[in-house]
């Protein structure tokens, strides 16, 4: 191949003054601004662009748009590489790099092509038949299948580009900027409606870009330019070229993918590569056009077999001649203007083969003048040539179209076969929107059924193929859609331009597959991307498949990245014929989003890395960071897990922190606890209904531990709530449940108990909380609050006071709760969030003489477990009642509360429920994993009856050994027994104990 051997010297919408260099499979080539990669490859004489999925057959370009099944390439390199991009949708730019896929070692010589020779081994459903047994071999089969039958390879390094999302609202969304869509958008725009016009192409005009039609006496493309200018100048219109609508969801919510910078070498500064739009449209106009179907005949996948309309587009839009000597084969009128355009472009047109007995009369004069032979009532029976078309075999079919009439066969040399098998309206989006499709036997295609959403379908998508109809009905639809959205144009109706007179249409002859010449005639492909042939579909029918949904899954027809855009209708027709039923009886498969593949990057948008989820930090976070804290995420919060010193192992650090709290003094940041301010005259009554225990008797100044249940009686959350005033409470929740608890409270107040006057407000982030714990806690606090009596008598356990702290603590006013979670003497000091760092610093500085030790969540867990305090989410799992945890005393018998009745259901009262126990392994150094199952015997071999599981497991420096909490069936009655903890194929013996391992006694008073 030498340069752009197939480029026409003039014509097309390419800019011949702007030459672009690109590389395909490491070969440098040239194209022009306005090319796609596909048109540039064709211009350079490249016919072979890929190998097929299953048989590795050589494949060339067939289409010019998004329906291209073969021309999938890997675009760009490194982290920007993107596999499976259709060459027909890649806008050429200078420096573009692409390579072919699914070939090894090279495109020209591919070892996988052996699959084609071995193809009797690869019938429909061959995966199911061949690789079913033995199941243990699957991993090996899969590896082979993946290597041999695959598509492109994804990039392995991070994508350096940015992706973003945008929301939009409009009165009318017009999908597709062909003649119908432009007419609709213009009419809607002139009513003042807010209009969005999206088209997947780089240029507006749709089919007008590729054919030579006229509007209002000028080339149609001039009309397009005029309309585009008017729309672009309007404030109420947003034009989105290079934007494919991929999803149509409920209530007119649509998703669009805008390829912002895919047509550039790389995105400009601040520019995203792609933008995902979520649009809510009052009205939608679908002007999505139609797709030309190929005809199914032997070896119809050889490079050089192309869609007739695609060929017309390559000639007229890109100035490319896809061959030197062409044969056209058609069952409708679509191929005729293509034949004329080919001849005008200097391609020798050997014949127009029309399978209809009556070919249309209107084109004859032109064909004769150009010396093109018209062969009516004939069919192309098969393609000759292996890596490229070298000729076709032509014959006559019987009236039913299912057999070849012998003796009339003829060979014609050619390098290009243009197929036109009729047109399928592009109704994927409409189907996604919940509209059923109606079969039209005369035209051999599906038409829109009754729409369920506010949507109109116009133009070729509605099987209106004549330009004048598209312009008229498009304008009407755009105007009506705007009216329905509440916008009206005074006076005149929409402007309707005039198209040139087109020849009358002769009805098509639906024919789903061309009978072969018999004996090894070659594969007739239906789905080119998934490598499914007509014989595969017939085999599926013979094997008993009746529903098209089953045939699809068995043969994989329509399951490629193109969702069978060119395959589905032919497949339906072939299956219907094989089953001797009508097409509607076979049904059609459901279209699901996305219409066109969407990269994960676009779906993720900006929500990657640290922006995936918000991170919440406490006011004292900076101090923790400066002092070596290792953080763990708790919900969205980052909490210090521990503060290991330089060179200190994590386990040693946790031990050190745990010991410090029991022997002297520790300090923990408890700011993340959920906090809810509850106010109102009925607040105490409300808490009484929410918690299992009584709240009306709690005095102002008191604190109380509460348990909350779901209506199913299972523990939902716990925490200490304090009474700030007669009508005013401060509730604390577990860190992870702060939002769910507030939701829970709100739902009861709003829906079931509107008579209660109570207001709940989250104040989690308004308070910084420092938990001072340990035998020296009171001594230190007294130094910070010299004017305050902190004695056990003046400030007893489970009370709170507002304390004016002294100078050492910067004179802060604090709410101090005498509560704790470690069993030691504890004060939880609450100050307004902004004062948290000052409070923390003062405590750390003054606490030095007591070797005050900041401790993290892990030491806190050890400390609370040592004294048998449960943790929601650890000891509970949504199936745990208060009694299961030995908290039966928390449950009031006297009053009603949420979930109470469920505690008296048969199942919650039965004997043998899992109950909280302690476990001490025989080996005091052995720490079992949390979640390990409990079994009775020492032999771990299955089958086993599970008796429960380990809920918490730690090493305790205070106990000098490991210990665990567990839920064990009937556990409270089994204290002293030995059970076994099973994990990793072993059974570790342990003694059942009570769930409390340590009692600080008097020092906590």
């Amino acid at each position, binding site marked *: 191949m030498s340069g752009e051997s197939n480029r026409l010297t003039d014509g097309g919408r390419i800019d011949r003054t702007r030459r672009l260099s690109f590389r395909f499979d490491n070969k440098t080539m040239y194209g022009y601004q306005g090319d796609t990669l596909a048109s540039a490859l064709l211009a350079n004489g490249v016919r072979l662009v890929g190998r097929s999925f299953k048989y590795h057959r050589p494949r060339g370009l067939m289409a010019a748009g998004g329906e291209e099944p073969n021309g999938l390439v890997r675009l760009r390199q490194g982290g920007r590489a993107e596999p499976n991009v259709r060459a027909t949708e890649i806008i050429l730019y200078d420096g573009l790099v692409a390579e072919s896929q699914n070939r090894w070692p090279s495109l020209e010589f591919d070892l996988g092509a052996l699959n084609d020779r071995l193809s009797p081994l690869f019938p429909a459903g061959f995966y199911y038949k061949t690789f079913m047994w033995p199941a243990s071999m699957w991993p090996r089969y899969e590896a082979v299948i993946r290597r041999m039958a695959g598509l492109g390879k994804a990039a392995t390094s991070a994508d350096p580009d940015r992706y973003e999302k945008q929301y939009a609202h409009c009165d009318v969304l017009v999908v597709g900027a062909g003649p119908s869509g432009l007419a609709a958008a213009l009419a809607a725009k002139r009513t003042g409606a807010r209009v969005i016009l999206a088209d997947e192409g780089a240029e507006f005009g749709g089919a007008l870009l590729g054919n030579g039609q006229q509007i209002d006496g000028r080339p149609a493309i001039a009309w397009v330019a005029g309309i585009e200018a008017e729309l672009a100048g309007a404030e109420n219109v947003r034009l989105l070229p290079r934007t494919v609508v991929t999803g149509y969801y*409920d209530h*007119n919510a649509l998703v669009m993918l805008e390829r912002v910078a895919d047509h550039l070498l790389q995105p400009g500064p601040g520019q995203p590569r792609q933008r995902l739009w979520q649009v809510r449209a009052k009205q939608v106009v679908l002007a999505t056009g139609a797709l030309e179907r190929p005809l199914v005949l032997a070896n119809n996948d050889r490079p050089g077999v192309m869609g007739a309309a695609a060929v017309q587009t390559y000639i007229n839009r890109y100035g490319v001649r896809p061959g030197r000597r062409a044969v056209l084969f058609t069952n409708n009128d679509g191929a005729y203007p293509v034949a004329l355009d080919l001849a005008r472009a200097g391609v020798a047109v050997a014949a127009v083969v029309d399978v209809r007995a009556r070919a249309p009369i209107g084109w004859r004069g032109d064909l004769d003048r150009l010396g093109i032979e018209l062969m009516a009532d004939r069919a192309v029976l098969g393609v000759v040539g292996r890596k490229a078309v070298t000729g076709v075999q032509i014959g006559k079919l019987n009236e039913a179209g299912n057999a070849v009439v012998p003796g009339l066969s003829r060979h014609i040399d050619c390098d290009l076969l243009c197929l036109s098998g009729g047109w399928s309206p592009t109704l994927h989006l409409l189907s996604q929107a919940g509209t059923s499709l109606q079969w039209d036997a005369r035209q051999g295609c599906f038409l829109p059924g009754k729409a369920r959403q506010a949507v109109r379908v116009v133009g070729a998508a509605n099987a209106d193929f004549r330009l004048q109809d598209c312009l008229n009905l498009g304008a009407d639809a755009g105007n009506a859609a705007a009216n329905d959205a509440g916008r009206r144009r005074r006076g005149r109706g929409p402007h309707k331009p005039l198209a040139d007179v087109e020849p009358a249409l002769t009805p098509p002859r639906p024919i789903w597959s061309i009978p072969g010449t018999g004996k090894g005639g070659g594969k007739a492909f239906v789905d080119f991307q998934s490598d499914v042939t007509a014989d595969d579909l017939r085999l599926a029918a013979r094997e008993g498949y009746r529903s098209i949904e089953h045939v699809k899954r068995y043969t994989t027809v329509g399951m490629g990245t193109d969702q069978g855009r060119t395959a589905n209708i032919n497949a339906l027709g072939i299956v219907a014929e094989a089953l001797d039923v009508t097409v509607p009886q076979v049904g059609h498969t459901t279209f699901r989003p996305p219409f066109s593949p969407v990269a994960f990057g676009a779906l993720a948008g900006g929500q990657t890395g640290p922006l995936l989820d918000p991170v919440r930090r406490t006011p004292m976070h900076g101090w923790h960071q400066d002092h070596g804290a290792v953080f763990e995420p708790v919900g969205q919060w980052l909490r210090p897990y521990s503060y290991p010193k330089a060179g200190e192992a994590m386990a040693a650090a946790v031990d050190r922190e745990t010991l410090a709290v029991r022997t002297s003094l520790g300090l923990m940041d408890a700011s993340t606890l959920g906090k809810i301010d509850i106010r109102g005259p009925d607040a105490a009554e409300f808490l009484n209904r929410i918690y299992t225990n009584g709240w009306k008797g709690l005095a102002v100044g008191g604190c109380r531990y509460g348990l909350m249940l779901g209506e199913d009686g299972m523990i939902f959350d716990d925490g200490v709530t304090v009474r700030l005033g007669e009508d005013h409470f401060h509730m604390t929740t577990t860190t992870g449940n702060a939002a769910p608890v507030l939701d829970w409270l709100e*739902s009861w107040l709003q*829906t079931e108990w*509107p008579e209660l006057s109570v207001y709940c407000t989250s104040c989690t982030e308004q308070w910084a909380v420092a938990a001072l714990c340990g035998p020296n806690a009171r001594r230190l606090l007294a130094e910070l609050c010299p004017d305050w009596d902190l004695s056990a008598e003046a400030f007893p356990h489970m009370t709170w006071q507002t304390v004016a702290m002294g100078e050492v603590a910067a004179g802060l006013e604090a709410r101090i709760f005498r509560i704790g979670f470690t069993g030691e003497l504890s004060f939880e000091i609450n100050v307004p969030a902004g004062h948290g760092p000052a409070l923390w610093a003062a405590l750390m500085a003054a606490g030095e003489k007591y070797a005050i030790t900041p401790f993290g969540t892990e030491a806190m867990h050890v400390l609370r477990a040592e004294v048998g305090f449960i943790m929601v989410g650890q000891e509970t799992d949504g199936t745990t009642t208060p009694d299961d945890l030995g908290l039966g005393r928390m449950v009031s018998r006297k009053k009603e509360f949420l979930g109470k009745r469920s505690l008296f*259901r048969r199942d919650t009262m039965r004997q043998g429920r899992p109950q909280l126990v302690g476990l001490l392994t025989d080996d005091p150094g052995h720490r079992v994993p949390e979640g390990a199952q409990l079994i009775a015997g020492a032999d771990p071999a299955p089958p086993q009856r599970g008796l429960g599981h380990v809920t918490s497991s730690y090493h305790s420096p205070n106990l000098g050994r490991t210990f665990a909490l567990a839920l064990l069936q009937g556990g409270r009655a089994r204290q002293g027994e030995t059970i076994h903890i099973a994990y990793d194929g072993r059974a570790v013996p342990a003694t059942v104990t009570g769930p409390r391992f340590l009692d600080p006694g008097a020092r906590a008073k």
Partner: protein
Amino acid sequence: MLLLSCPWCGDRSEQEFACGGEAHIVRPLAPEDLDDRAWGDYVFMRRNEKGLHFERWRHVHGCGRWFNVARNTVTHEILAIYQVGDDRPELPE
């Protein structure tokens, strides 16, 4: 992606809401008088309608208010939006 009209805020996308399941389930006034089955029906049993369904929604990422919705579960048509505590509207099945 439904378009729901919050009675307080107006038309908003489904993303701003949380569905709270079937509406018009009234908490028994005297749970202790119910047998296990009747209480279990209240706690666990929910309708699974194909067609007209009355359900609770909350504008959780907005005003935070609960309200009721009559929705066709097949077509997702919203047939009515009304306040918590109001009776079911009369609607054709």
